[in-house]
């Protein structure tokens, strides 16, 4: 099998792509739709990739961009929601009525998209900081500070076991 054969290069990445997609969107079918679109795009621009380059950062970039497109599409109809932490409600540990969050995936769900992606790409998918910076299109210094903040927030959610009431409104 040739080294540039798409099957040989893409298929080994599918488990990791499915894992990242599932952590981003939750629903297994929606996640696999995202992976399918990602793979279709990768095939349609196969000629654009640089031979010999590790396809992983490239594939994660495509998948994340597709995910963001969909988020924006959904949000376009309603109020504009910035994809940054300012738009997220603060954690209120003393507030009564919060829902218990002991599960890592439920806690992840409460992070802003950028912090979530960084925890996943660096902490789970083992991308280097440089590769993660390329996937997100941000400087490496920003990667480090958002990782630091994301992990602190993740910690706080797991420790308090609560999510704020605001987030429970569907």
């Amino acid at each position, binding site marked *: 099998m040739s080294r540039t054969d*798409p*099957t040989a290069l*893409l*298929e080994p990445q*599918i*488990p*990791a792509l*499915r*894992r990242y997609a*599932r*952590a981003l969107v939750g629903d297994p079918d929606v996640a*696999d739709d995202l*992976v*399918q*679109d990602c*793979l*279709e*795009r990768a*095939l*349609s*621009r196969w000629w*654009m*990739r640089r031979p010999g380059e590790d396809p992983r950062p*490239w594939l994660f*970039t*495509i998948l994340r*961009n*597709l995910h*963001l*497109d969909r988020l*924006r*599409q959904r*949000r*376009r109809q309603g109020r*504009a929601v910035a994809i940054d932490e300012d738009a997220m409600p603060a954690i209120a540990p003393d507030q009564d009525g919060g829902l218990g969050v002991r*599960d*890592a*995936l439920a806690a*992840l769900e409460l992070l802003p998209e950028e912090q979530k992606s960084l*925890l*996943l790409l*660096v*902490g*789970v998918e083992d991308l280097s*900081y440089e590769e993660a910076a390329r996937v997100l*299109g941000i400087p490496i*210094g920003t990667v*480090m*500070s958002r*990782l*630091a903040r994301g*992990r*602190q927030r*993740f*910690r706080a959610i*797991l420790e308090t076991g609560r999510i704020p009431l605001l987030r429970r409104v569907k």
Partner: protein
Amino acid sequence: MSGERPPIGEDDLVAAVDGRLTPERAAAVDAFVAGSPDVGARIAAERRDREALREALAPIAAEPIPSRLRIAALQAERRRRGGGLGRIAAAGLIFAIGMGAGAAVTRRYDDPGTVRVPAYATVAEEASAAHRTFVVEVAHPVEVDAGREAHLVGWLSKRLGRRIVAPDLAGLGWKLIGGRLLPAGTTAAAQLMYEDAGGKRMTLWVQAIDGETTAFRFRKDATSSTFAWVDRGWGFAVTAPLDRDGLLPIAEAVYERLDAGGDAGAAGRS
């Protein structure tokens, strides 16, 4: 001086959680933690969190791959779909977007007190509406693909009455994937679509329009940004999911290259 280590930074603490410190930096972090046990506790806790997340997600990667995600299946589907069915769907979409763009212009600018929509605003509005519709297309983002570039630019030029060139933006990392013809007001517009290696899509929009020649005008939407300008009876817009600073060099390159191309062809000018 030479024996001093650089001070501990946030990046060291992050790398400590990931176990990616060089031996020297690891020693420096250890020394730092000895004096600040709370930092040590934080690193340990974040390591446990990291591990918990990996464990929670591990079963997903261990699942068998669904057959619809097999590369051979996707390639077969691509070959099957290569035909003309999408063209018909695209024709329907063109009509829809024409209506949609018109309605959007009316809604946005029909406020009491607004006298008249400036030409550049119309161009920006229609260009960004068309951008939003077609960049999300996976199967049929363009009507004529870049493989037939000569046909594409010839056809668009003929329909618009102006020589259209597809600016070469490879130097900026953008590759032409094709284009389509769309209605704009009472005339037609051309949309050329480009893509970067990461899958972002950028569109270039050209339409005939009456209005004053303007400098670049910037417009930001929820999904994308647009630079629009009007130049001697023609409206141009460049739209992409980038911020102002990211989009500006592209708009400048397009402006330069279109200007050169337009003068060389001169079909619609003199």
